[in-house]
């Protein structure tokens, strides 16, 4: 099966490929979804995002680099993560199904 359309690109912070639904979070909105395995989308994480990170299967942050909090914790957890994905919170929608290929730093549309 070929890849879907590339929605955005970022910098790989931890390699891996995962498919799942986008869960948008912000400092003012740290709601924990009922089901685990979502792909966390946010501007950047800080220690307050720890539980969300632990329950996610992948991470996309709009800012930050490979030494940011999201990058460090995703490496500890062994989950795919891209950081510095410009405009990610505008391009991706909460609940959207996507494929995160952190190895290449790309996010693909899922059918």
């Amino acid at each position: 099966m070929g890849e879907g359309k590339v929605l955005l690109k970022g910098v790989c912070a931890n390699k891996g490929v995962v498919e799942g639904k986008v869960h948008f979070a912000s400092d003012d909105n740290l709601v924990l979804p009922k089901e685990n395995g979502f792909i966390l989308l946010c501007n950047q994480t800080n220690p307050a995002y720890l539980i969300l990170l632990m329950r996610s299967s992948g991470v996309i942050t709009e800012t930050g680099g490979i030494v940011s909090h999201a990058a460090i914790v995703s490496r500890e957890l062994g989950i795919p993560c891209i950081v510095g994905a410009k405009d990610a919170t505008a391009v991706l929608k909460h609940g959207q199904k996507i494929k995160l290929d952190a190895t290449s730093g790309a996010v693909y549309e899922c059918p």
Partner: protein
Amino acid sequence: MSVLDDYIESVRIAYSKPAGNNWPARGRQLMSSYIKLAAQKQFAVLEKARERFSKKEVANAFWSATQIRYIITGEFVVGLKLCERDFKDPSLQKVAESTEYLLSLLQEKSSKDYLCLGGKNNLLTKEKVEEIINSDSLRSDSLQQAKMLSASLASFSWAFGYDTHFPNFMDIHGPYAVSSDKQLLVRDYNFENLNLVWEKTFDIPKRIRIYLLYKNSDISIDWELHTETLSEFILEKFKAVEMIRGEERELSLDEISKIIDVASEGTMKQVEYVNALPVLDKIRKGALLSFLQIKGLADLVGEDWKPSAEVEQAILQRGEDVWFGRTSSPKKPSSDNWLATFDPRIPKE
């Protein structure tokens, strides 16, 4: 190549990576108010210790090699260069000599690859690594718990040390080659001095060490404690211990679960607490964390480690301006600028 050239090369490797925009503040916001005073204090206690104690004794005043690395590129070189620029004291030559001395302490502490130029921060002996690998206590039945323990303790260190000073509490060492496709990575956590900075510290063990065996052959660690890998991390086995007076006591899965809960809750509460602090109090805590780095050294020479009244004055005078960025333009330095900034032989403009 001189020792200082090698040091600059290791800084170049660490600073060539895209930096994070982290919480709650990077060094510029925190340290700019008091960096010269912090560097002067570090310099003074270091020189006193150098006169009176052996290199080994002085090196042992730091809990980890990483702590020395963070001092050098944190406040020491930049702060002293600012002192040289503003009052010609100490001289640039003295700054370079003193930096070389710190690098020699680093070598004493981490003789195998003290600058991490080979992608390693190796501290354990080959015999110790073999003993760990050959023991039957490495477990594979709860790898998710091992990951959560590691992630929650890293976040805990971050929340209590800010990102700028988390090496006060956390160190990563290795990778230790076990076989052609397996590497051991060790996380050390030291929360013994947590209560010297923070009023509420939660019921976390003082010293924890986690041994993590990965099916991977290309993990690397640089000067700034960044871990990198060219493939996915595949955790195979782990062991978590509590260190009590240097002796290791293996933690049960129930104890690990409790530590994960305490570290997670502590992290959340600490974030709420720090976010609610007034700006100057955030900076004051940053100053305490900065000065905590040399507590061991200050104890060795019989001096108080805490920030002086001058530091409080500097924070009162400059803290808000620095925090809100009213004193200088926040332009992003190029990598050449970083190298010039951290090279003790190049004067500060």
